[in-house]
């Protein structure tokens, strides 16, 4: 039941932070409200507006605690009895304001003065409502380490004067990019885990999508928010086809398209079309458009590689990264011919910008394999294997190396 209303968590915490300025109090009161719901809803039934019910309970709890703290302060120091009244919280639960709070909270959690890992942890704790233990598990660090990370991040927000707000116009483009990057990182953390059904990891993907959905609703004039949501949905739609029964990676080409989630793909298409209508195609929209070329093809042979190549060309202009250039080389190979693609890869290798990156060699190996240049392909697979880090990728490359050396490819 609690998970059905997990989306309410961020709203409640965001509102209480604005009203009390106290992050810990906000989290504790949200927790109390969910606990209260668990006690009462099974007997009383779920209220008509569960979000408002939870918010009211959490707010009342906050008022109680603040009153109690004030009493304690008074007992300790009689003089303070003449101090200012604790600000009473009025009862307006105007939806707009609460939504604004959630946006404030997103920007504050993703403030660039916080370490990236702290931004990610804070986002999961305060916006998604994951427990410290869950976040620690997802990022493979001991729980006390994660707890310390969260405490430090909150202390910095309060102590360094990080404002609780949506940034003003001149900072907005840059800061929005920061929020999108944290959400995409969350998604990728969850998505990259290919081995086994790890529930916490899967939840990272779900939460990232939920937050991207919220961000898109909160920033309707920012097409990149929609672009990010579409990108996540296109990837997520393929999750069941990405690994086989023993957890090995299945390449896009070999995936069983029947396992793709058609509804999610349809939604991603709608979201992306809406974003592209703004006429400002940023990196997330472009990446989504590229993944769309794959997901909308009836089978691998139908893939519109020419379109993908020109999208990568646009992307390379906005994001001049060597990894983008490598993907562009693949699209060139698949649309204009393997030789043209291999030439692009040689250029990239000569630039030295991808030194030590196993996918440079794995990609060249794959193109050589397709060209039937098997001994050269085998060399390239060996170079890739010398650099690869993850087990599932190592198994995949080893399998391919076996194929090209035995000539069965």
């Amino acid at each position, binding site marked *: 039941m609690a998970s059905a209303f997990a989306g309410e968590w961020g709203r409640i915490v965001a509102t209480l932070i604005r009203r009390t300025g106290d992050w810990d109090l906000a989290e504790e009161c949200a927790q109390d409200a969910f606990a209260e719901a668990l006690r009462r809803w099974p007997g009383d039934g779920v209220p008509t507006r569960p979000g408002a019910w939870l918010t009211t309970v959490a707010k009342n709890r906050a008022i109680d605690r603040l009153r109690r703290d004030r009493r304690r302060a008074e007992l300790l120091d009689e003089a303070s009895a003449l101090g200012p009244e604790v600000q009473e919280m009025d009862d307006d639960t105007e939806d707009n304001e609460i939504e604004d709070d959630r946006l404030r909270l997103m920007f504050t959690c993703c*403030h660039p003065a916080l370490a990236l890992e702290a931004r990610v942890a804070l986002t999961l704790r305060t916006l998604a409502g994951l427990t410290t233990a869950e976040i620690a598990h997802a990022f493979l660090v001991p729980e006390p380490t994660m707890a310390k990370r969260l405490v430090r991040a909150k202390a910095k927000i309060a102590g*360094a*004067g990080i*404002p609780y707000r949506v940034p003003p116009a001149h900072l907005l483009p840059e800061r929005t990019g920061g929020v999108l990057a944290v959400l995409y990182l969350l998604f990728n953390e969850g998505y990259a885990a290919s081995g086994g059904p790890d529930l916490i990891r899967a939840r990272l993907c779900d939460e990232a999508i939920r937050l991207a959905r919220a961000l898109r609703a909160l920033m309707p004039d920012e097409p990149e928010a929609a672009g990010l949501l579409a990108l996540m949905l296109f990837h997520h739609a393929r999750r069941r086809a990405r690994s086989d029964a023993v957890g090995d990676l299945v390449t896009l080409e070999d995936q069983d398209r029947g396992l793709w989630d058609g509804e999610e793909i349809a939604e991603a298409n709608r979201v992306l079309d809406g974003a592209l209508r703004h006429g400002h195609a940023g990196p997330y929209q472009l990446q989504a458009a590229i993944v769309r070329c794959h997901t909308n093809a009836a089978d691998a042979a139908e893939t519109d590689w020419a379109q993908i190549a020109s999208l990568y060309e646009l992307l390379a202009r906005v994001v001049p990264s060597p990894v983008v250039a490598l993907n562009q080389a693949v699209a060139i190979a698949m649309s204009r011919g393997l030789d043209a693609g291999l030439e692009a890869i040689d250029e990239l290798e000569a630039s030295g910008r991808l030194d030590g990156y196993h996918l440079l060699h794995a990609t060249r190996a794959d193109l050589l394999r397709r060209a039937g240049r098997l001994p050269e392909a085998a060399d390239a697979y060996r170079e890739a294997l010398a650099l690869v880090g993850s087990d599932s990728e190592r198994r995949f490359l080893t399998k391919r190396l076996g194929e090209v050396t035995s000539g069965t490819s």
Partner: protein
Amino acid sequence: MRYLMFVCVDETLVNPESVKDMPRDTIAWVEEMDGRGVRVQGNRLAELPTATTVRVRAGEVVLADGPFAETKEHIAGYDILECADLDEAIEVAGKHPVAKIGAIEVRPFAED
């Protein structure tokens, strides 16, 4: 909020070309920030060889020639800022010309 800005220079980035406009640009920065009322006070420090580090160990005053930390970045000056929040302090620090050839640490004063 009140912030202290440590203005640090990275020796490896100092060359005649990179410091050519520093004096002029620093004066312009001071004038702008004084004008906005965000700069309370500040100063350049004398050259690094003039630094002396003082420690008391086992009741004895122990002196060392030079700064307390031997790094390629050293404190060349400081400014005290009065800003609305960290975003404003970051903006002010980011406009300081030395940020291009070093690093600027922005830290709030501890609250009483």
